[in-house]
């Protein structure tokens, strides 16, 4: 059997889940025997490839680019895993949602709070427009498994990955489910 084609993606999040992934320490060496990392913020692929066995998604869906990329990823991944609280619940990025639409938020952050030259970040084709509302991944596409935590501990990530490399869909239980 060939190696598992493994990807991880960083949408609207702080990269903390990926940092926690690196906390798997020497187990990463064992993991590397079993998976081929075909796409990841910590690898050097520019385009999300086809025929991926499993993709971990960190971060919430915040802007149009996130949403477009997510649909491509879903199409090309057999198993899609929401990785961390932002992906699972929206978490911190979604804290803008109760404040209403995008405009008042951009105004506060980029104009009122700016030290100099306050203006909206607009660059067509470069800066993706924000979605009206930040959403967890499973509200946009079908998700097969969830790893909660902000960030999920390395133990929790390992428990999920052990199921994945055994060819199963991870299903965490008990205290492994706790958010935050």
């Amino acid at each position, binding site marked *: 059997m060939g190696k598992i084609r493994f990807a991880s993606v960083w949408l609207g999040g702080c990269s903390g889940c990926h940092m926690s992934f690196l906390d798997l320490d020497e187990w990463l060496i064992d993991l590397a025997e079993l998976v081929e990392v075909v796409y990841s913020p910590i690898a050097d692929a520019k385009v999300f490839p086809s025929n991926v066995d499993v993709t971990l998604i960190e971060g919430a869906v915040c802007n149009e680019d996130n949403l477009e990329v997510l649909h491509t990823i879903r199409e090309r991944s057999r198993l899609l895993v*929401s990785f961390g*609280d932002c992906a*699972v*619940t*929206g*978490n*911190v990025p*979604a*804290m803008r*949602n*109760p*404040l*209403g639409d995008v405009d008042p938020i951009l105004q506060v952050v980029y104009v009122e709070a700016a030290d100099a030259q306050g203006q909206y970040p607009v660059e067509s084709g470069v800066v993706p427009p924000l979605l009206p*509302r930040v959403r*967890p991944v*499973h*509200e946009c596409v079908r*998700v097969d*498994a*969830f790893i*909660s935590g*902000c960030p999920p501990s390395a133990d929790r990530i390992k428990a999920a990955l052990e199921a994945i490399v055994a060819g199963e869909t991870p*299903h*965490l*239980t*008990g*205290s*492994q*489910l*706790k*958010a*935050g």
Partner: protein
Amino acid sequence: MAVITLKINGKDVTAHEGQTLLEAARDANLPIPTLCHLHGLSDVAACRLCIVEVVGTPRLLAACVTRVADGMEVSTNTERLQEYRRMIVELLFAEGNHFCAVCLANGNCELQNLGAAVGMDHSRYEYLYPKRSVDITHERFGVDHNRCVLCSRCVRVCDEVEGAHTWDIAGRGGKARVIADMNKPWGDASSCTTCGKCVQACPTGAIFRLGATVAEMQKDSSRLELIVTAREKRQWVR
């Protein structure tokens, strides 16, 4: 006091007349999850997490307000109940603005613990993100309505234990919220004695001590039990 015998999850259990199913089950080491229940306060069956199945009744009954009866056959943890409890917790998360990671009750929150206890790995319900306010007008405490699950423990502890009745619930449905002194800013509520019992009774980070930051707000509802026991039994014991 008459002794009642009943079956809970197939196990013979004895209880005192007048006890609730929740008390009888807990005495028999058969835990039932709760949120709005707090030992020493009256029960209002607000959260519905303690629902149980009773043979002969098509409805699910809240164990905290259902009295034991002779010959009752009760199930506390069927697949149907587990599914409904998970739905209830998902709805609680979807209805408010609960951001565990940056909440001062992170790690000490009954709602957060319940999410794990009922097997919630995500919410199947779309998050509503309601626009709610935060009141930090009180000199020592604050209330963040975003994190409130309307369990009414603050209302009851203030009324029944402290005797001040500062808190009430106003509004209906999604607009319901706790209010102080007929809807004044908490800091202007003259009935509040600043005792802090509502802070200890609150299961989430909704009512908190000013100055506490993320994961710092530890609550100890057993301090309330101490007061209730002292009043009821004239004993200052834990």
